[in-house]
């Protein structure tokens, strides 16, 4: 997902939309090779030629991580409202409607109870296609409720982040979700709850500076863009050239900010192993 072709500044490549005339073929935005859609899907949406990670929808991610048939969604109908009557290039209410149509979900996170190798987890998965995976009131609320559920059921918590940060269109209400999610996770962890945070491309801003970096264990997908401030803002503020690979998962691993980088195809297995260890330790 990260391109270093123009200087050292990493950037998110625009994901190739499916060609309406020819939906069976998808062009990789990184190596420009043409991939057969079905084959790409079988390869977990990782380009077989250059290893570029296509975005996964929340549904695809759940399918990838959970045991088939063991997924009970929570708060699926919780939907956002335009609390500030916000309009930028288009009205926020319209933005929400478009995202609902695009993703077939009410918000930028799906939360629920599932099983991974028969072990129960409370899991939340973000969807970048819903207003950039941004966190507003409903995303915050769904996380808080999920954490409560994990505490109640004594199950580990897994959150898969994919987000540009706090949702600007909900202003200060979004900022407060950073506090709310962190408070809930703190209470859960203090009771001994295990929280695995999985960072995918991208995880930035108010999401990275709250629940995403509170994981007892933090795992990232390769080459994901992860950081607090935007690269452009940093460049403009510091007038410095950004180091190669700045804010990639690899960069964060090197700087001690995350535990592991795990390939998409191995993610489920690793999470399962950790859950087994945790489970055995508890009994």
């Amino acid at each position, binding site marked *: 997902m990260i391109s270093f072709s123009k200087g050292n500044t990493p950037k998110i490549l625009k994901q190739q939309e499916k060609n309406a005339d020819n939906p069976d073929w998808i062009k990789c935005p990184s190596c420009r090779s043409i991939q057969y859609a079905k084959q790409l899907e079988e390869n977990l949406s990782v380009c077989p030629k250059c290893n570029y990670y296509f975005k996964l929808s929340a549904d695809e991610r759940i399918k990838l991580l959970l045991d088939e048939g063991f997924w009970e969604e929570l708060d699926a109908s919780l939907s956002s409202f335009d609390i500030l009557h916000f309009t930028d290039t288009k009205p926020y209410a319209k933005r929400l409607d478009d995202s609902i149509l695009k993703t077939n979900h009410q918000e930028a996170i799906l939360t629920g109870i599932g099983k991974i190798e028969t072990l129960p987890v409370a899991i939340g998965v973000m969807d970048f296609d819903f207003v950039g995976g941004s966190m507003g009131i409903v995303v915050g*609320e769904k996380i808080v409720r999920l954490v409560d559920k994990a505490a109640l059921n004594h199950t580990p918590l897994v959150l898969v982040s994919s987000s540009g940060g*706090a949702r600007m269109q909900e202003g200060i209400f979004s900022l407060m979700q950073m506090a709310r999610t962190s408070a809930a996770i703190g209470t859960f962890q203090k009771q001994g709850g295990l929280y695995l945070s999985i960072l995918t491309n991208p995880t930035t801003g*108010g999401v990275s500076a709250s629940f995403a970096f509170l994981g007892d264990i933090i795992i990232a997908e390769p080459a994901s863009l992860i950081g607090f401030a935007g690269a452009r803002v940093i460049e403009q503020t510091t007038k410095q050239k*950004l180091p190669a690979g700045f804010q990639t998962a690899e960069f964060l691993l090197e700087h001690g900010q995350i535990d592991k980088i795990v390939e998409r195809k191995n993610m489920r297995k690793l999470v399962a192993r950790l859950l087994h260890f945790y489970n055995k330790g508890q009994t």
Partner: protein
Amino acid sequence: MKNYLPFEKPLSDLEKKIEELEKDSIANNIDLSSSLESLRQELIEETKLIYSQLTPWETVLIARHPERPKLMDYIRYLIPDYIYFCGDRHYTDDRAIFGAIGTFQGKPIMIIGHNKGKDTKENIQSNFGMANPEGYRKAIRLMHLAEKFQCPLVTLVDTQGAYPGIAAEEHGQSEAIAYNLREMFQIRVPILVIVTGEGGSGGALGIGIGDKVLMLQHSIYSVISPEGCASILYRDASKASLAAEKLKLTSQDLLRFRLIDGIIPEPLGGAHRDQKAMLETVKKEVQQFLEEQSVSNREFKPDKRTEKFLKMASYETTLNLFQSQS
């Protein structure tokens, strides 16, 4: 008065007139007291008028005013016998955040805040109050120290935001802020948060979790700076004043949203016009907060802090608010 904001032009004109008249009166030894008196009255009325119809953008400019009282003014005024502490014990001492313990009305309190300077030299030393991870780590260390001293904590928020720098990212700016957000809910002494100037995003919230949260009348609190919002959403940083309006970032907005517990009134014409009066008002607010504590610092439990934040900005609370608006 050296710095006038653009919308304060009528005030600067009037003040100039008054000054000239005063000089005249002395130089020529004539009694102009009645003209002076009416001009002074006019100045008061004009100030009242301008400050009663501030736009959100004008409020942003006041919140950033270089002559507003800064952290060190509050510390010197509230706890004159203060002892300050340095370092995060990991890497460095970030002077963008400053913390000290001192005596407030006979008992110790700890004050921690963003450290904006008065002039360029001070501002460079304190990085304009924009903290690196080390600043947030120092802050939480001092909050734990306050627990040990069993003294209440006052945090003063005044930052454009956490520093967007290369080293900040390398050292874990995200983690440092997230860690504070989580840990501040567990601090076992009462915490009063006062937004004194700019409440800029996660960088503000990183020391902004408290049992009581107040804003000075002309301070702001926002998820992103108006300039940042304009550049991202409108692709035009010059639309900052429009963004300021949309973001709903004034103390009146936040009180209406029930995201803060109260507004601390500023002297007429803003805190920058009468620093002493502002400091005195804040002192009274701190005193009141301490008086409100019904249990001793030793018995204090932070559970209500968590409850408070979980309730405010929750789905239910905001939906009710939304429905009552429309």
